[in-house]
């Protein structure tokens, strides 16, 4: 029943909602129109979640070598057994080759090894807690049995577990590298735009010089100059810095361009007339209106970072074993002879390509959304 005097507020029309929306909302709506970018965002969030949980997803210790399990082909998980849901894999059986007398391990389809959820395996630390629980593990395993979803490498290490850990290293090296690039880019680009004059000219020429240098030979040279006694962490940091030192230029250009175009805007003039200090204008008025542009530029710079690390490690001059990264894993697949013997080593390329594609699509979507009034 409706009383004659109660006035219901009418639902706001589409145009009205659009007119009252904040910039962030507008940007978000525009972003959601780019389907591929939304999907990419979800893919990347999943990838980073998986990267953080890498050890939880791993089924065996990624560093543990085992001569018996060298080059085992990828093994599927069988989900149903005896008419019920009992996931299992087949065990391994040692067989002696009667010509070479070499003991090699083959899949033994007569013996089933059942999977358990939240099984115990090697120790690792997650968010500061030490634990040994993994997503799944084997219940009645013999010594050489394992869940080889993606097969094993020459030293008998499980590729799935190694890939999980490699994903963490490669994805975060990109993030750290981009942070350094972003810092350099914002400072140099901002300074260049704010002060103008000879500082601007200097920074601009610097950008041109850096951009016209062939990067890979220089990276190779610099990373080869790292002492071999350095620890994995030191090498990791050094590689990140080397990569980001040559890739801040695009970010600096974006920042400078945005600064220069925003300086002419009416709202900046209004703030100036209202007596706001320069710092206030920069941080409270100008910066919020181009953070979205910076985020877009960052998401386009990230794949380049990841490719750089992968390329360097692939050539054996980036991260070195025992560190695990995508490049280090791909290094195993470097020659054709190995690839023909163990083509599954190339599966590492799949996450590399997916992540790079996703970053590109995300960057595209963000770039369109960064200007929601356009």
């Amino acid at each position, binding site marked *: 029943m409706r009383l004659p005097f109660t006035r219901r507020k009418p639902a706001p029309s589409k145009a009205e909602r659009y007119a009252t929306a904040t910039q962030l909302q507008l940007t978000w709506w525009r972003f959601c129109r780019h389907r591929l970018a939304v999907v990419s965002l979800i893919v990347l969030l999943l990838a980073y979640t998986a990267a953080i949980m890498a050890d939880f997803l791993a089924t065996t210790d990624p560093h543990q070598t085992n001569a018996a399990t060298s080059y085992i082909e990828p093994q599927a998980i069988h989900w149903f057994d005896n008419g019920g849901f009992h996931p299992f894999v087949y065990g391994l059986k040692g067989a002696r080759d009667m010509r070479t007398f070499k003991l090699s391990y083959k899949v033994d389809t007569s013996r089933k090894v059942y999977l358990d959820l939240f099984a115990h395996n090697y120790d690792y630390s997650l968010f500061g807690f030490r634990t040994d629980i993994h997503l799944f593990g084997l219940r009645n395993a013999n010594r050489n049995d394992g869940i080889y979803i993606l097969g094993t490498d020459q030293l008998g290490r499980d590729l799935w577990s190694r890939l999980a850990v490699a994903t963490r290293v490669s994805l975060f090296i990109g993030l750290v590298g981009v942070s350094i690039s972003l810092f350099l880019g914002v400072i140099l680009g901002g300074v260049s735009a704010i002060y103008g004059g000879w500082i601007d000219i200097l920074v601009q020429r610097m950008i041109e010089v850096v951009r016209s240098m062939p990067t890979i*030979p220089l990276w190779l040279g610099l990373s080869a100059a790292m002492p071999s006694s350095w620890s994995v962490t030191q090498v990791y940091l050094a590689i990140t810095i080397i990569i980001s030192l040559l890739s801040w230029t695009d970010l600096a250009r974006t920042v400078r361009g945005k600064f220069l175009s925003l300086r002419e805007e009416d709202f900046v003039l209004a703030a100036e007339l209202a007596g706001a200090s320069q710092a206030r204008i920069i941080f409270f008025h100008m910066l919020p209106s181009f953070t979205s542009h910076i985020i877009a530029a960052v998401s386009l710079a990230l794949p380049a970072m990841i490719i750089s690390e992968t390329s360097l490690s692939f050539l054996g001059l980036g991260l070195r074993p025992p560190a695990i990264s995508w490049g280090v894993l791909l290094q195993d697949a470097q020659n*054709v002879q190995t*690839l023909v013997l163990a083509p599954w080593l190339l599966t590492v390329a799949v996450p590399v390509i997916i992540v790079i594609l996703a970053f*590109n699509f995300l960057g595209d979507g963000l770039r369109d959304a960064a200007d929601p009034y356009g």
Partner: protein
Amino acid sequence: MITFVVRRLLLAIVTTWLISVLSFAIIQLPPGDFVDTYIAQMAASGSSVSAQAAEAMRKMYGLDRPFYVQYGKWVGRIVHGDFGESMEWRRPVLEVIGDRLWLTVLLAFAALIITWGLALPIGIYSAVRQYSIGDYLFTLVGFVGIAVPNFLLALVLMYFSFRWFGASVGGLFSAKYSLLPWSWGKVWDLMKHLPLPAVVLALGGTAQLVRIMRANLLDELRRPYVVTARAKGLTETRVVLKYPVRAALNPFASNIAYLFPFLVSGSVIISIVLGLPTVGPLLVEALISQDMFLAGSIVLLLGVLTVIGTFISDLVLMWVDPRLRQGMG
């Protein structure tokens, strides 16, 4: 116009200088110096060098002097064509590099031509026939080109050619010619082997250029002057090619200056995968065995060649863009 050329020339000189400093730093950075390496090598082959002799050698090569003096001496020697001696090969660096440098340039140049030759027509086609099947197809291929690092592409190519044809696709020469001196037959052999690595190298850059060209041309096609041209009854080809394509070419052309360094970089890594006789594999070998004179010289030579290549593409750009010619750029 003169200002533009002078500015570019100055920039080229500064870049060359910076590259030379970095190359020298690469030679100097590893612990120990050239004499230490020499002593270690002598020890490995059974003879020993006394401390006095080592000291004398250090003096002779100026290794006891500060960094900038050594740098000056190094540059002085290079100007006279003396790049030092390769530790690994026991031969002058230039002799070790030999033809490899020119093959590197040739590969990068071929990739550059392919990039231009493919990106321009595909970009125009994708913009004019926006959302057609062809456009979607090229966009898809383009994204693959961007997302797959070229060394991975080379790797996959190697694998499948080995799998299907049982032969390796690598190399720039067939076995018959690889050790022979240059002849027309060898040149022809090179021409037959060049396209594949050049395409692998060119794909990433092409994909990016196609996207830029497509976006620019789409912007231009929506302008009123295009409608006017059409209303005047010009043929569609003329409407598109005469004005919008030319206007869209500008940002396209300015990106080309950065394409050459990108290609030289890429050639290093795909050469290793495809086993091409360019300086790439030599550089990596030299770096891994700490043969620093060879490595530093290769970095320097590649850098200088890139600078020259970029300078030439700037001149081409000036020839294409009337605004730069008139000194407005």
